């Protein structure tokens, strides 16, 4: 193809530009990484642990069997799946901790499988029940159901996305958020979750439970809460081991994000592997946040 080079000018003036090798992008040793960020808040929901504080204390609450959908309005709470409600609870906690406005914060939702239970329900309607497909179920079977319901519930007309990357979903969501923070200079919500892996389709040895975790990332100069500095690095040397484990948690696609939250809540500094060894090797490097 012919044509002029174009790597400047006004066409992407709103993006923070960094040339190869410049500050923060990647070092001469070859590591590929995000720019430096801070973590401004965290949130979590898993059965028995309805928030990050409960998880940090390992004080199980038997009443916390189902997520509530705290960041949804009443109508959309009814529409949402259990996955959507778990994502909503984790997101609500993280947004409150970071002091960000749910009506404005750009949102990245990550899920390896997405609305798997809703999809199974539609397949049952098709092949076993032979009933007409539910239009309500169909419209919330899309992977971005939770991000859409968050946007609608909170009147947020800004950026929202939904992505998947198998066991690299936490890293992918953090990298997408890092790009947004760099381009926009404002905090970004990341909420990742997966629901109970579908029994019909996944062998017992690969199944896991409902879980959602959230963080708010912000520019390094962010004046609000600052739990730690964070950089997402490919192929780092993880030195922080998972603080808690069960087989079903260990194989959860979002386990790496739980490990990151564990480290943040304990005030640990170092490198956390984001994929539990099952992905490409992305790590989160935690450091003392620079003075804002």
């Amino acid at each position, binding site marked *: 193809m*012919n044509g002029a080079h174009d790597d400047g*000018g006004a066409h992407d003036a709103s993006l923070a530009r960094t040339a*190869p090798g410049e500050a923060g992008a990647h070092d001469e040793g070859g590591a590929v990484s995000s720019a430096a960020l801070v973590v401004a808040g965290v949130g979590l929901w898993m059965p028995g642990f309805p928030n990050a504080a409960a998880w940090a204390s390992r004080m199980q609450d038997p009443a916390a069997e189902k997520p509530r959908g705290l960041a949804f309005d009443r109508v959309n709470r009814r529409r949402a799946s259990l996955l959507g409600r778990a994502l909503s609870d984790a997101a609500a906690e993280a947004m409150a901790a970071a002091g960000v406005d749910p009506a404005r914060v750009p949102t990245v939702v990550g899920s390896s499988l997405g609305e798997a239970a809703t*999809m199974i329900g539609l397949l049952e309607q098709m092949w076993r029940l032979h009933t007409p497909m539910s239009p309500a179920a169909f419209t919330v079977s899309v992977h971005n159901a939770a991000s859409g319901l968050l946007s*609608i519930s909170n009147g947020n007309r800004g950026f929202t*996305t939904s992505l998947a990357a198998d066991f690299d979903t936490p890293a992918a969501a953090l990298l997408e958020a890092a*790009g947004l923070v760099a381009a926009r200079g404002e905090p970004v919500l990341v909420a990742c979750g997966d629901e109970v892996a579908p029994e019909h*389709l996944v062998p017992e040895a690969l199944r896991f439970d409902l879980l959602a975790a959230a963080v708010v990332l912000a520019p390094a100069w962010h004046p609000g809460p600052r739990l730690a500095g964070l950089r997402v690095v490919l192929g780092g040397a993880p030195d922080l081991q998972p603080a808690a484990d069960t087989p079903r948690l260990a194989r959860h696609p979002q386990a790496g994000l739980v490990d990151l939250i564990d480290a943040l809540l304990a005030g640990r500094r170092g490198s956390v592997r984001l994929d539990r060894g099952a992905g490409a090797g992305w790590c989160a490097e935690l450091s003392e946040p620079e003075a804002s």
Partner: protein
Amino acid sequence: MPITAYANLNALGGTRADILAALAAGRSGLVPWDGPFPVLTMVGAVRTELPALDGALARWDTRCARMAAWLLAELDQPLRRARERWRPERIAVLLGTSTAGAETTERAYRTYVEQGVLPAAFDFRRQHTFGAVLHVVATLTGARGPTWMVSTACTSSAKPLASAQRLIAAGTIDAAIVGGIDTLCSMTLLGFQSLGALDRGICRPFGTERAGINIGEGGALLLLERDGDARVLLAGVGESSDAYHVSAPHPEGRGARDAMSAALAQAGLRPGDVDYINAHGTGTRLNDVAEAGAIRALFGAEVPVVSTKAYTGHTLGGAGAIEAAFAAYAIEEGWIPPSLNAAPLDPAVTIRVPTVLTRGMFRRALSNSFAFGGNNVSVLLRAP
């Protein structure tokens, strides 16, 4: 930012020449649906023969993955050059889909219901999930940078252009394979049928007699690089949310206008600078009038607006990338196709919708994609 190469696959064909020939002739690629459920509608089925994946990728074989492999083969030379220029860790794979391997899962589930066991060859992780297609693309290209699949319904394959743009600007990567793919499946057909959104014949975007959409399949992949020779540049991407309804657009196209405005702002352009708009233009009563209203409010009545949905069907998660490629064709070729089936134009649609092939200098072209969840993306391309 240069788009150094792109490839497109849809109901019109699997090569640039075939697709351009159909667009120039105003020839629809839609055919009657003949899937396992009797849904009376037309679909944009890909008729290009797609070779099965073999060797180490045989267990990852799905229709979606085969389409990815086809598109990568079309980009073989540019990808080789990119690999020579950039380290593999700094080449990202950022794609979009709404269906991924749903077509394969659907058939496997039928077997499960009828026989009590899944087909022996079915592997949920390798064939159903979003990660499966990513694995195939990363393996075939050797890219080892950030890798993810956006799934925001009908904006899925447009959003990766913005993600890549941000990661390149932030210095995290130097190049990215972006775009996306969707395949036809019964679940999608039945779902849109349940919403009363399917046209029985070929859809009629912006037409007064429009009655709904046709579903299509296909995809497009684009190679974005930090610098390089290109005939088309990514000038800006606008992303917004309606914050209105799960499946209906805001009646005044509020979110659509926000996305188009954001694309212009990022590109440093004014509305009058845009020469052509490839509309989302699905053919539903609500979408077309809302989108036309937003375009009229922002751009006025003169810019030509074409919907290509009557050629390919609505390719859902593939539409953003496929139609970004259509916008790129306009810039490169100096003509835009007729907006097929738009006549007679809905009087409520007060924008310019050409129904004949139009020649001209189209130096800046905008492509719209709007989705369930009120998710909106506008991709703005320009000539160097």
